């Protein structure tokens, strides 16, 4: 009696090198969180890493076009966009926000120190081929439509696609 084995014969060929990947889960929408997210994403791309940023929950709001004011279908979603304005020119600080004075000072300091703004970094990320993927489920939850969001993003996707992209690479949750 012979037994079939599923085991593959050993070959001398080396395993293919794992792809150097960086996946960032951008969960936060504040200026001081989205900024390092974009700094790390562009730096990762500059290092030749296949870089993906998956924007979910509060992280979606920086992707809203600056000129879009109220988003959503029902009063709850509309209220959410009232209270939490989207767009990369309207981001708040997670501490010392002082009704917008904090971000204004931070942006002033950044200009003085020649630090690229989140807007410039977002453009740079697109140019460098960083995959910018909005989360479909949270878009639906928050009432954000594809046309509310900036251009240059990839098709909205789900958690499985995000995890599949992240597989075997470096992951950050910001």
């Amino acid at each position, binding site marked *: 009696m012979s037994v079939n084995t599923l085991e593959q014969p050993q070959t001398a060929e080396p395993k293919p090198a794992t792809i150097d990947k960086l996946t960032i889960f951008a969960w936060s929408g504040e200026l001081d969180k989205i900024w390092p997210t974009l700094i790390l994403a562009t730096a990762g791309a500059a290092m*030749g890493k296949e870089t993906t940023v998956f924007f979910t929950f509060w992280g979606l709001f920086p992707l809203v076009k600056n000129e879009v004011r109220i988003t959503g279908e029902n009063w709850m979603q509309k209220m959410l966009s009232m209270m939490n304005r989207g767009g990369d020119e309207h981001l708040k600080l997670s501490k010392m926000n002082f009704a917008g004075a904090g971000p204004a000072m931070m942006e002033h300091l950044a200009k003085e120190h020649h630090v*690229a703004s989140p807007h410039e970094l977002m453009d740079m990320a697109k140019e460098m081929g960083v995959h910018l993927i909005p989360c479909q489920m949270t878009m639906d939850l928050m009432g954000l439509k594809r046309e509310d969001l900036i251009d240059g993003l990839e098709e909205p996707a789900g958690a499985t696609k995000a995890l599949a992209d992240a597989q075997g690479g470096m992951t950050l949750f910001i």
Partner: protein
Amino acid sequence: MSVTIAMSLNLKALSCPMPVIKTAKAMKGLLPGQLLEVFATDPGSVPDFKAWAQATGNRLVESSEAGGVFRFILKKKEF
């Protein structure tokens, strides 16, 4: 034989991560073995360029400082 620098970048005053990003973009236009010279003033660019070279396989031939200006010479990796 003198060493020829194929391209020179002035990245003075720029802060992290821009010096490395602009360098990475410029490097794409070079041929393997060619040299890229970079001037920067961000002190963080010293460890950043060292790490970037290690990660990408490009060689950091020179890393020096004079009067607060850092000079890096990078050699594009051969295939």
